[in-house]
């Protein structure tokens, strides 16, 4: 089994310059690994830093110390220190991300939003749209919505667009930030199936799931984030 | 004539002082050396208003000698105010011989026409130019147009022609039609009708252009390529007239429309009066009138 994601001794502190330089340590010495075909779940109470860890792994938050090693194009890349251009390339082909909220782009249809990462990965636009339509159908998004920009969609509808967008590619690493939060039971179950398929396909998944039911169905291992709580010294 | 003899003694030959003439001649030589290039010169105040041909007059004054024979035309005509005045001016300040016959002139100063009779080697055609810069229409900055000439960036010239076609369905520019001289400089041929453009190409005569207000001189040496700009699918064409000159029957020449009465009566006659009169004298006649009938203008 390969291990496409290895995080070691990762630390993050927010410095609030507008509040007189107050330092807010978030996590310290975060270390874990996710193997191919495994779904690891970040566990712990709100505010423990689960989301921050996920965002650092995606390159969305800066890491203060430590390493985030991903296997990209057969080589090891440290996302904690990689230049922006490398991070973009890693995101395009290696690390996928399903965020909690959809960032809506004006005027772009739901179908195109879903197809976009597949096109960026190198799939023909028409094939990507066909695949996007299949994903949206599977997630029970009414077909009449596909051609509309999701700005006016409900929370659950936006979330499904977001999930389809994250799952459409064959990225070896997929990060999931509460993908089922605003979904009904039937659609939650679809997502659980999709996660199982990703695992079977050898994808390494790292996620945050507040829904205990879903968590129990998908998790192969739980990473207890409270272990990485910063020492309250200094 | 003799009454003026003492007065003109106050003037140098051909009105301009010799230093000025030298300066202008240097500009002319440079212009001949760089065909189509606008050479700046220190234009002088002339005893006539700008717009009346001060540029052409200064060029003529700088090249004219006592043995020259001068012809002056305005829109093809020898006897309109501008032509008459300038001819009289040189008779007065240079005492040169004047003529209305194209073939007999050594210097022809013109406003907006090229004579129909082909010019010969040794003749000089001096154009009066109001706005020498062909790019001015779209680019008001002189610094920029100079740079465009220097770098041969002439796309803008075609923008103007494009715009013509877009607005009128064909290239509607009928006078001051831009030309490229010897494959290099784009030049404004002064407001001559585009009908005359082909006459500039490989002409045996030296062609000099003077713009007094704008202080520019440019030239086309004899036997120089002069090509009118155009598009592949809208090639350059000269005006054609569906009837010959009403007076002399001349065809393939540039005609002026003359309104005869208030009832809409009109006729088309040669713009080149010398050419027309000569043909009439040779016995040619047009559909209207007999030789010598219509006193044009």
């Amino acid at each position, binding site marked *: 089994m390969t291990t496409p994601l290895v995080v070691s001794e990762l630390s993050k502190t*927010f*410095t*609030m*310059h*507008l509040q007189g330089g107050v330092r807010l340590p978030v996590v310290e010495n975060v270390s874990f690994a996710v193997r191919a075909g495994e779904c690891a779940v970040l566990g712990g109470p709100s505010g423990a830093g689960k989301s921050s860890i996920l*965002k650092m792994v995606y*390159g*969305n*938050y*800066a890491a203060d110390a430590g390493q985030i090693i991903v296997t990209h194009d057969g080589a090891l890349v440290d996302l904690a220190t990689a230049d*922006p*251009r*490398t*991070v*973009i*390339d890693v995101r395009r082909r290696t690390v996928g991300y399903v965020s909690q909220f959809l960032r809506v*782009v*004006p*005027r*772009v249809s739901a179908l195109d939003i879903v197809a976009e990462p597949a096109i960026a990965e190198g799939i023909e636009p028409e094939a990507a749209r066909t695949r996007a339509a299949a994903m949206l159908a599977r997630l029970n998004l009414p077909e009449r919505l596909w051609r509309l920009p999701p700005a006016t969609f409900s929370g659950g509808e936006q979330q499904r667009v977001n999930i389809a967008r994250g799952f459409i590619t064959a990225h070896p690493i997929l990060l999931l930030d509460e993908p089922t939060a605003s979904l009904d039971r039937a659609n939650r179950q679809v997502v659980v199936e999709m996660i199982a398929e990703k695992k079977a396909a050898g994808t390494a998944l790292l996620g945050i799931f507040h829904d205990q039911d879903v968590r129990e169905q998908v998790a192969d291992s739980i990473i207890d984030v409270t272990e990485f709580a910063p020492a309250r010294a200094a | 004539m003799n009454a003026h003899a003492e007065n003109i003694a106050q003037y140098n030959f051909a009105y301009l002082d010799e230093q000025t003439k030298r300066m202008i001649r240097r500009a002319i030589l440079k212009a001949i050396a760089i065909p189509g290039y606008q050479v700046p010169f220190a234009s002088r105040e002339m005893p006539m208003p700008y717009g009346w041909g001060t540029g052409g007059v200064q060029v003529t004054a700088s090249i004219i000698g006592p043995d020259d024979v001068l012809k002056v035309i305005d829109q093809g005509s020898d006897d309109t105010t501008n032509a008459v005045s300038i001819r009289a001016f040189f008779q007065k300040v240079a005492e040169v011989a004047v003529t209305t016959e194209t073939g007999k002139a050594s210097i022809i100063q013109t406003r907006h026409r090229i004579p129909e009779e082909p010019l010969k080697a040794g003749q000089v055609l001096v154009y009066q130019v109001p706005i020498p810069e062909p790019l001015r229409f*779209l680019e008001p900055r002189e610094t920029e147009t100079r*740079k465009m000439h220097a*770098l041969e*960036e*002439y*796309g*803008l010239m*075609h*923008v*103007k022609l*494009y*715009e013509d*076609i*877009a*607005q009128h369905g064909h290239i509607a520019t009928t006078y001051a039609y831009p030309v490229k001289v010897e494959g290099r400089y784009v030049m404004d041929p002064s407001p001559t009708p585009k009908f005359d453009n082909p006459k500039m190409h490989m002409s045996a005569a030296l062609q000099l252009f003077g713009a007094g207000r704008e202080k520019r001189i440019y030239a086309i040496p004899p036997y120089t390529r002069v090509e009118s700009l*155009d*598009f*592949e*699918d*809208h090639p350059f064409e000269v005006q054609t007239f569906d009837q010959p000159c009403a007076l002399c029957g001349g065809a393939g020449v540039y005609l002026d429309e003359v309104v005869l009465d208030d009832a809409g009566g009109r006729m088309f006659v040669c713009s080149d009066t010398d050419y027309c009169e000569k043909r009439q004298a040779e016995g040619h006649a047009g559909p209207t009138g007999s030789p010598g009938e219509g006193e044009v203008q």
Partner: protein
Amino acid sequence: MTAQPLFTVRSVSKFYGNRIGCEDISFDLWPGEVLAVVGESGSGKTTLLNCLSTRLLPTSGVVSYRMRDGTSRDLYRMSEAERRFLMRTDWGFVHQNPADGLRMTVSAGANVGERLMALGDRHYGQIRATATDWLGRVEIAGDRVDDQPRAFSGGMRQRLQIARNLVTGPRLMFMDEPTGGLDVSVQARLLDLLRGLVQDMGLAAIVVTHDLAVARLLSHRMIVMKEGRVVETGLTDRVLDDPQAPYTQLLVSSILQV
């Protein structure tokens, strides 16, 4: 990933007497990459843009561009003729005020066709067809091809300016506040259009803006400037979601939430 950057900026500074326009700016731009330069008025971002696009001679520093033949050339060692040729073929410049980048007294078709004619296209029908096609790509109806931009709305003018620049298939675009002065709804349309065109054509772009939403939507990377210097640089979403420098934190926290 291409091995070589398209555009390389090293220690570029511009001084106006003893005042700093911009100081010691260095970065690389790769093909297809969009870089946003953000900062408030007077931060030096427009000065920098002008220094990079050869519109303003920097006091010191080196700006090189990789030509289509693969050679890297120092812009300020090129002849002016070469620079101007580059500017109207391989580059584009989108001004904040479309009137600065358009010829207001000739038709939309002539505006788009100008670069083609400058390159020697001499077939009216083809030039007009290409121009009409480009108007369509920037969502201007083809029947406006013979209208002057004076008759266009602000948003249409801006789109026309973009089409005029893109017609030669440039590889690098400079944009100075491309959505400044437009209504919000018009801005959204323009941004979406730009985003699509940049993606489809694989354009590299340097976008100067004070609007962080514009930077977020268009750019991959950001440079935050203050008083002529770079205070922070990085991946756009990283800079906006986890700003490090005090000034960037101030900028980000000053955005009004809708």
